[in-house]
């Protein structure tokens, strides 16, 4: 089952480590992500994009405004909304298979065996995270999140640290398995934070541009093109998004 996510007038400030100053990260975010929709959030670095994901994940609490998932206010961390961390946050003491089985095991459910194949991890089950390339690590992170079959998948620059080729491959994996019509899987609601306009245009149904800190939603672009997309053919919208990001 897919669920929608809404943020209404969400404000958040954090206390800066060291100086003890209060820094406004979000200054009233209004955003609705429909059930089964993939929304990309782009904006300058350090603008609070990650804060949005942590609020939806329930790892942070809004100072004002409301975050709802499927109509219910978000009050804490839950397996219905799973975050894929920027660096993967894999458990280094567990093998690939054990990492992926972590969630199902905690919930006393079996692992969907098709997942390993879908993410190209067959054959790597017994390896430890430190033995993996960056691209493989992010595949495991994605598989681990998908293994608990969340309604909402939160992606925090999951391909940000990868080389161009791995990045392209992983975008393809996500696209093939969870975005294309007739892939046989129910589409999940996804929020993708990225600094790559190209990635946003390739994967998202809508691209939300947020301003520099304190962040507000600056502009929203609808990407209405069939998948798989030829990003070079979407030059116009890419340039428009790029302009919106630069102008903040």
């Amino acid at each position, binding site marked *: 089952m897919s669920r929608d996510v809404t943020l209404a007038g969400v404000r958040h400030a954090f206390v800066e480590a060291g100086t003890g100053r209060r820094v406004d990260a979000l200054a009233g975010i209004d955003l609705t992500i429909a059930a089964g929709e993939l929304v990309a959030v782009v904006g300058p670095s350090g603008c609070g994009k990650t804060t949005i994901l942590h609020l939806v994940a329930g790892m942070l609490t809004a100072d004002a405004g409301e975050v709802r998932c499927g109509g219910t206010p978000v009050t804490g961390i839950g397996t219905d909304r799973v975050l894929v*961390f920027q660096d993967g946050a894999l458990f280094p003491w567990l093998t690939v298979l054990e990492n992926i089985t972590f*969630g199902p095991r905690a919930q006393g459910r079996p692992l969907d065996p098709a997942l390993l194949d879908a993410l190209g991890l067959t054959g790597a089950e017994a390896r430890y995270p430190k033995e993996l390339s960056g691209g493989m690590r992010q595949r495991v992170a994605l598989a681990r999140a998908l293994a608990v079959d969340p309604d909402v998948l939160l992606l925090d620059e999951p391909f940000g640290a990868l080389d161009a080729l791995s990045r392209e491959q992983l975008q393809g994996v996500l696209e093939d398995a969870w975005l294309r019509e007739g892939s046989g899987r129910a589409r999940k609601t996804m929020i993708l934070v990225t600094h790559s306009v190209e990635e946003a245009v390739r994967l998202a149904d809508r691209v939300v541009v947020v301003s520099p800190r304190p962040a507000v939603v600056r502009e929203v672009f609808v990407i209405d093109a069939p998948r798989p997309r030829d990003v070079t053919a979407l030059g116009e919208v890419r340039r428009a998004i790029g302009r919106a990001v630069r102008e903040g």
Partner: protein
Amino acid sequence: MAPLSPAVTRWGLVAALLGLWELGGRTLVTDPRTALFLPLPSTIALAAAALARDGTLLAAIVRSAGRVAAGAGAAVLVGVPVGAVIATWPRLGAALDAPLRLVRPVPPVAWVPLTLLWFGVGERQQLAILAFAALLVVVAGTTDAVAGVPPALLSAARNLGERRLLLRVAVPAALPGVAAAVREGVGTAWFVLVAAEFVSASEGLGVLILEGRDLLEPARTFVGMGALAACGAVTDLALAALQRRWTRWT
């Protein structure tokens, strides 16, 4: 010519230095008093053989190893939980920071007079010195290891539906650091052994070392020092092997 392996270079250097010492001693030292105070490697080897034959060396090693095991063991049993608690409550850690910083630079031998007053002459006083020195190291190492558990791993585990965060995340995440702290604690116990056996021990490697002066047998001191070095090294190698085995993912 093929390059020498590091092991050959390392042990070759030790052998060369011993050879130089033997040769230099035999050719340069003519004064018998100097010869007595600075025994040759061959003299030390003979002394070692004699001490091994009459059982003195083995008895000393067994007694000292037992003390180290008991002292370090107590330090680990107390120090690992204490370090974990300090790391879990940062305010407690901050409060204890200053006293620990003040205590750490005081050499263990400085505690000998007080521990003698408190525990009297005997095994308890020796264990107190060993355990206290090792405890400081184990607490500090464990605190760092537990405080260093990435918060993202705890969040990720909760996000995946795990409730037993301590067992399933904190313990394995901190394990490599705690293992290193234990190893360092055992090393410290060997390091302070002589201070611990300084006054009140009747048998042990530290005693052997101190006896060299009393009996005017410096070779005995050298044997004790060599045995102490070997014991420390062997223990550390064994612990390193265990560490590799139990933390294979690192």
